[in-house]
């Protein structure tokens, strides 16, 4: 099950996403939280301590390749997704695993 949480800045989008992730994990569900916001701060809502935030590195850009597909630019991974989750995912409190997508390079929407 993959759930995307959208909403304007200030709507409470990140609070909803992070709290959902923690509560689902608390029920024993395997949860991967993905921070795809340009201003990533999901880690704090997940309960990561502020001094541990430096350990949360975004996915390196060179792992994402821009490809043209049916006339639109898509981001594709150069490595299998599962491998990236293992390598770049960060363990947050409450057994939630977090992956931060990072900012696409300039000029790429």
């Amino acid at each position, binding site marked *: 099950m*993959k759930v995307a949480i959208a909403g304007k800045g200030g709507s409470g989008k990140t609070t909803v996403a992070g709290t*959902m992730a*923690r509560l*689902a994990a608390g029920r024993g569900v395997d949860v991967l939280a993905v921070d795809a916001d340009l201003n990533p701060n999901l880690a704090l809502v997940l309960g990561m301590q502020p001094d541990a935030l430096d350990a949360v590195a975004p996915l390196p850009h060179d792992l994402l390749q821009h490809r043209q597909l049916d006339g639109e*630019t898509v981001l594709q991974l150069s490595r299998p997704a*599962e491998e990236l989750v293992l390598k770049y995912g960060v363990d947050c409190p409450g057994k939630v695993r977090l992956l931060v997508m990072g900012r696409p390079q300039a000029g790429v929407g």
Partner: protein
Amino acid sequence: MLRELPADDLLVVVDMEASPEHLARSTAEAVNLMLVVAEPWFRSLETARRSITLAVDLGIPKVAVVANKLRDADDHEVVEAFCARHGMEVFATLPYDDTLGDAERARAAPVDHDADAPLVGAIDRLVDRVLGLARW
């Protein structure tokens, strides 16, 4: 990326960019459910309406509103009326919660700060619904 991840025994929760405008069709197709968080006033609901139209066009199978920061019956009414008029499903309603500011000041996760806070309880019921949709 999302498409590649196995989702049979995993719940993936994506905190998206503000609007699905930049969402590629290939990404959208990997998502089972999109929840658009909106506040109970016209501009916020109108923004949500546009996001939902886009998300549906992109092929996301289920798209619905999560109304947040509701203070009273009037707020509920505004949300219900707007969504009914535009054929939008209200997936969950979440209360305005004072304790959220305290959690922020303490730099704590809302669930760690006060697991019994009204907002946390409401999101727990939202999780019920999401897990109810999932086929494990």
